[in-house]
């Protein structure tokens, strides 16, 4: 099956800064894919190359098999991008903005789909308002509408919820989830790691222009962070002292790789006849994984 997005050995330098240093990435059709990284990691440059806004120094990028340079017309028709910056054309109303964007893609008679988009993005009542009259959150929703107006099978969302209130964020994600369940491939960059954890199936982490982690969310969570265990006991066997994260009174907070290791810990405690009076577990979240990966990556 043709990958939704295929990035092969893509490199890009801006002056002395190596923004991307030979990135390889394949996103399958229908995936909800997260692209994470600190500021300056190269996420937006990678998206810009995919969208034809920036040209790569080396390597190739394809959208559903269409090269973004040699076959840019088809590649761009298949791609919808929600840009990071909150930009708009102050001359037009919301509806005109969407109609014009549809027309740029050569779509005629897109009225029904535009009505549906306005409804899903809760913009129907503001359809005839000038873009200048909208709040930041509303402008962000129009940007999402502009990216979807040509019904692209691959949708890239570059920080789509920055500055958006919680209620709107939830309705936006419900809509994006629906698009994903309808078969659209979604690529998301966000600084809200809980969003990525809740939505993405696979995640790539970039640092200094390189991919430093690429796996399913579940594998990343279990491989890189494991469990945090808090237990109250009189003592802890010597073998497990190195796993202590912190200690207060008779409580120990330990870092474990997985549930199998927890079982071994409990068995050791039983063997040493150490009574556990209290025990609680906390699974690692994506933020902890992200911080650990970024800390160990050079």
């Amino acid at each position: 099956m043709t990958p939704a997005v295929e990035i092969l050995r893509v490199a890009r330098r801006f002056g002395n800064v190596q923004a991307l240093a030979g990135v390889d990435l394949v996103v399958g059709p229908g995936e909800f894919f997260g692209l994470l990284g600190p500021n300056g990691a190269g996420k937006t440059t990678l998206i810009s190359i995919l969208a034809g806004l920036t040209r790569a120094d080396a390597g190739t990028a394809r959208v559903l098999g269409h090269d973004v340079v040699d076959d840019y017309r088809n590649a761009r028709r298949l791609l919808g991008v929600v840009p990071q910056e909150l930009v708009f054309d102050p001359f037009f109303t919301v509806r005109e903005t969407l109609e014009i964007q549809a027309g740029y893609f050569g779509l005629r008679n897109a009225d029904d789909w535009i009505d549906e988009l306005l409804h899903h993005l809760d913009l129907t009542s503001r359809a005839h308002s000038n873009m200048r009259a909208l709040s930041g959150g509303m402008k962000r929703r129009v940007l999402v509408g502009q990216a979807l107006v040509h019904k692209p099978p691959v949708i890239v969302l570059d920080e789509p919820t920055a500055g958006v209130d919680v209620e709107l964020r939830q309705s936006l994600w419900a809509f994006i989830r629906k698009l994903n369940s309808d078969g659209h491939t979604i690529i998301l960059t966000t600084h809200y790691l809980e969003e990525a954890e809740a939505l993405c199936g696979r995640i790539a982490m970039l640092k200094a222009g390189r991919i430093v982690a690429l796996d399913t969310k579940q594998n990343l969570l279990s491989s890189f962070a494991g469990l945090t265990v808090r237990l109250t006991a009189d003592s802890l066997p010597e073998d497990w002292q190195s796993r202590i994260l912190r200690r207060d009174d008779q409580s120990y907070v330990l870092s474990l790789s997985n549930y199998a290791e927890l079982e071994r810990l409990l068995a050791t405690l039983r063997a040493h006849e150490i009574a556990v009076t209290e025990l609680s577990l906390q699974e690692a979240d994506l933020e902890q994984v992200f911080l650990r990966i970024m800390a160990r990556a050079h």
Partner: protein
Amino acid sequence: MNPAFGSGWLTLLYKELLRFWKVSFQTILAPVLTALLYLLIFSHVLEAHVSVFEGRVRYTAFLIPGLVMMSVLQNAFANSSSSMIQSKITGNLIFVLLPPLSPLDMYAAYVLGAMVRGLVVGAGVLAVTLWFAPLSLEHPLWALAFALLGSAILGTLGLIAGIWADKFDQLAAFQNFLIMPLTFLSGVFYSIHTLPPFWQALSHFNPFFYMIDGFRYGFFGLSDIAPGVSLAVVAAACLALSGLTLVILQRGYKLRH
């Protein structure tokens, strides 16, 4: 090409037209009023003192085609340059760069939009100035050819300037130190035969002179140089600038990083 999609350039053209139409007081009526003021002042001061084409044409009548063409040129330039730089600075150019528009699509839409504004303003100037002097239209097709080519050249120059400039200040410099002097020194207000030989010769290096002189030929059947020569110069300039602009758009100079 996917048959479900057409070309988007017509929508970009529509957007360019809608953009200036929405602020037509500023983009159409204001330049018409400016040209009318030029006519009132210059004709009042110079009508009795300046003889053109050996007295065969009244100065006010001579002035009208010059002002019409000047308005066409300045407004064609203003349209494409302001549209491009505003889109660049506000960042909404991304909406034009993301769709599958080719360099030729972008060129055609921006320049045709500029031509329409220039021609609409020119028609407006002609309509309000016609009453001030009897005016014939001896060779309408010549006049039309120069109006179309002149507006295309300035629309193209505006696009180049809008792409090149990173801030409004740079665009104003392009307009005030290049476009404005070339327009005012092109024979809008005088026949170059009234100039000393040195300035007469220098005028031949001003491409705007050929546009104005050729356009005026369409009205009076009289010109400072043969209209065929002017047409060749203007057409060559239009082709050269169009080629340059297409290369700029193809390379994505200052548009795609």
